């Protein structure tokens, strides 16, 4: 308060000017709050300047930066299983500066952990835990698990593969704790499994409970620091501002530059949306990687709880190991450096092991492709069903699942299936009928399959619609790989006459060209030659090319096109297709229109051609109707 009195204006001077009024208002504010005096006292605190003392203040500034960038993220984040990934994607790609803020926050978290470890090391090596400062050493150590929890909860929030699987492991580790494991894991997850309730919970912890706890702990840490720190030697002492403050700010700004570079040039990254079953190889953040190495070799709970706990206890007892009664600086230094050295060694080992692991490298590449595909699909808008639907409903994959459910029993593909269709009693439309309960006794090893092979299998579809497949089918339709498997068809279509065999390639190209989408990539001269041969060989006498004309064999107008395949799948027994020779069930009622389209999309990729709707090849459509004429849109157009 004494400092304040000196600044009060002389009585009467400028009392009625604007400046005078302002001055008096400020004085009244200062009188009420005392903040100015507090700041002055803080800034003039005598300290002995040094870089080793800059870690604490820089840490504090970094935490403030995390609070600010965290707010910027929370403005756009929506915690739920359907929206979390989509909102982070939207922030990354559609919010101006969103990716940069997220990058700052993500790399800031890493920097925070690194700086915290350096801070512990600097304080420890400086023996600043001795005497009255033991309490503050312990308070500071509490920050380690707190920041760890921050990192853990923040990692999950994007609900991408990386966060999801890392959290599956983390909750799995908690589950492995004796006695309380399952209850603790459920309390953490908000249920029996990871899901929307885990996200709301982790978000509440990450953005509300943990920051509040951290601020309280930090306030206490600073207060105890002021109350317990020894007075610096008078000859070395300088006021905090500017001698030490400049060092603190220099360290912080240096870190901030590194963060900004990382955020701008690398970004925080976003993997594909969380998928509860995948070959994604989970990895923790680098600072937890040594723990993973321990878990690989040491059974729980020794690796997960006992070892980290022992290290924590060792650090906590440092003020008494190297205490006022028994000064053991060398032992203390060894005890302090040992866990850090171990941690660093394991970190290096983890990196080298991953580099040498071929399974891991292949899975990483695949994960990167998945992420690219998911993001490309998301650029056209994430469906309300949630981000997981992006890949789940991606037509070629959806179609493949449907094929493996409905078609593969009769149609061999890539060496699997084609063993014959069982009695037709499956009325489970689409994929949804999978969870119905079935009563009866069960064995660990199922037996039965008496219905297998009841119906003859259909043509092999490996390479379906490809020129090679067409050549083989046209030359030898009676082959047991193709229509020879269906007795009624065996005699209907004879093998191609030998005279036409030299023109087989051209005929195949001509048949393939009935699909306008495929015609563009075929040689027009060859198609024309094939057309001649098609008529010369009298293919057209059974396989008409006129739309809607029913002949002995299937009508081939538009053969192989999406439309032809859709009509065929809906009703293969239609007079335009196999008519009375048909042995294939109709799927018009069993599958929905979307499912049929997905199945066709898959069938059309069997020849090795890429799916034409792959958004990674097509130009992205901007979201319409959202008024998003931002520069971000232009930047998206690749």
């Amino acid at each position: 308060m004494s400092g304040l009195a000196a600044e009060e204006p002389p009585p009467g001077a400028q009392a009625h000017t604007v400046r005078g009024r302002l001055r008096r208002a400020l004085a009244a504010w200062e009188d009420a709050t005392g903040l100015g005096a507090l700041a002055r006292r803080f800034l003039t605190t005598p300290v002995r300047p040094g870089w080793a003392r800059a870690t604490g203040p820089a840490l504090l500034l970094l935490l403030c930066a995390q609070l600010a960038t965290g707010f910027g993220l929370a403005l756009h984040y929506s915690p739920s299983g359907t929206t979390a990934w989509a909102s982070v994607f939207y922030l990354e790609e559609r919010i101006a500066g969103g990716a940069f803020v997220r990058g700052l926050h993500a790399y800031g978290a890493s920097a925070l952990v690194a700086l915290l470890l350096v801070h512990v090391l600097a304080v420890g090596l400086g023996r600043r835990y001795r005497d009255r400062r033991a309490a503050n050493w312990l308070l500071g150590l509490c920050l380690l698990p707190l920041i760890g929890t921050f990192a853990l909860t923040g990692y999950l929030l994007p609900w991408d593969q990386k966060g999801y699987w890392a959290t599956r492991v983390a909750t799995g580790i908690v589950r492995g704790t004796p006695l309380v494991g399952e209850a603790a894991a459920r309390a953490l997850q908000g249920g029996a499994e990871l899901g929307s309730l885990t996200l709301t919970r982790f978000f509440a912890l990450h953005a509300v409970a943990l920051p509040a706890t951290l601020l309280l702990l930090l306030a206490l840490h600073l207060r105890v620091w002021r109350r317990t720190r020894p007075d610096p030697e008078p000859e070395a002492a300088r006021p905090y501002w500017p001698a030490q403050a400049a060092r603190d700010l220099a360290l912080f700004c240096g870190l901030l530059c590194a963060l900004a570079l990382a955020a701008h040039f690398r970004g925080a990254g976003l993997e594909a949306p969380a998928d509860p079953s995948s070959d994604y190889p989970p990895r923790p953040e680098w600072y937890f990687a040594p723990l993973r190495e321990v878990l690989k070799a040491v059974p729980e709970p020794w690796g997960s709880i006992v070892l980290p706990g022992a290290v924590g206890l060792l650090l906590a007892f440092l003020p008494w190991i190297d205490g006022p009664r028994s000064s053991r600086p060398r032992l203390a230094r060894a005890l302090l450096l040992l866990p850090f050295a171990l941690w660093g060694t394991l970190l290096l080992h983890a990196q080298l092991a991953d580099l040498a692991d071929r399974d891991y490298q292949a899975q990483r590449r695949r994960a990167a492709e998945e992420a690219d595909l998911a993001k490309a699909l998301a650029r056209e808008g994430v469906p309300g069903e949630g981000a997981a639907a992006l890949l789940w409903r991606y037509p070629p994959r959806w179609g493949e699942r449907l094929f493996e459910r409905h078609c593969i029993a009769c149609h061999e593909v890539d060496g699997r299936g084609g063993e014959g269709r069982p009695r037709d009693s499956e009325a489970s439309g689409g994929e949804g009928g999978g969870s119905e309960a079935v009563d009866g006794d069960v064995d660990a090893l199922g037996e039965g399959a008496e219905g297998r092979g009841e119906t003859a299998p259909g043509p092999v579809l490996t390479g379906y619609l490809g020129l090679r497949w067409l050549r083989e089918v046209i030359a030898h339709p009676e082959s047991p790989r193709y229509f020879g498997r269906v007795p009624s068809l065996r005699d209907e279509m004879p093998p191609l006459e030998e005279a036409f065999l030299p023109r087989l390639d051209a005929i195949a190209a001509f048949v393939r060209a009935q699909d306008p989408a495929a015609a563009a990539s075929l040689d027009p001269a060859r198609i024309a030659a094939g057309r001649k041969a098609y008529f010369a060989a009298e293919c057209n006498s059974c396989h008409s090319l006129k739309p809607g004309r029913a002949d002995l064999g299937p009508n081939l107008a538009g053969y192989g096109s999406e439309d032809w395949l859709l009509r065929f799948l809906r009703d293969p027994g239609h007079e335009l297709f196999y008519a009375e020779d048909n042995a294939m069930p109709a799927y018009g009622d069993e599958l929905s229109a979307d499912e049929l389209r997905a199945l066709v999309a898959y069938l059309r990729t069997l020849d090795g051609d890429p799916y034409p709707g792959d958004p990674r090849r097509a130009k992205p459509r901007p979201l319409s109707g959202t008024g998003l004429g931002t520069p971000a849109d232009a930047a998206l157009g690749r």
Partner: protein
Amino acid sequence: MSDDERPSPAAGEAESGNAPPPSPGVDRRGFLHLLGLGLGASAAATILGAVGTAALKTPLTARGVGGGWVDLGPLARFPDGAPAKVVAVGEHVDAWNRFPARSLGGVVVVREGARARAFSSVCPHNGCDVFVRSEDLRCPCHESVFALDGSLVRGESPRGLDPLEVRIEEGRLRVRYQRFEVGIAERRPLG
């Protein structure tokens, strides 16, 4: 502001010197003391109890995914003798969302002719998803390796892969999809 200074021994004494002398009102004061503590404690207990109940009761009793029979498609889709990992598709309820057909999790199927075994692909160690190699199944997290009969070959998993009940009906493979608690030697279904 004095609390920022080191505590001086004199300050504490001055504080106690200001206390009123003992009086006949001490009983009344003691009662108010107890009342204050009691009110404060019950208010705190009410609020913390309410929040604690909301935070913990439902999660601790919630049921896990699965338990129903899931159709994995025709047995013919599985290669004979080699392991395959497929997705169990079924109704998935996540809090307030219901998805009629979504991945519940992975199933490893090892077919031997007309018979088949099935395992949950969740590694019983920490809950990662194992992946299929030609001769064995490997967990990408902590590198436990399992044989095709589900038994642990090496690694820190406390048990082998969890077998799922299997039925083969009309050439189609059905499994009773379940998740189990991880990290313990005992095989205990979730929920």
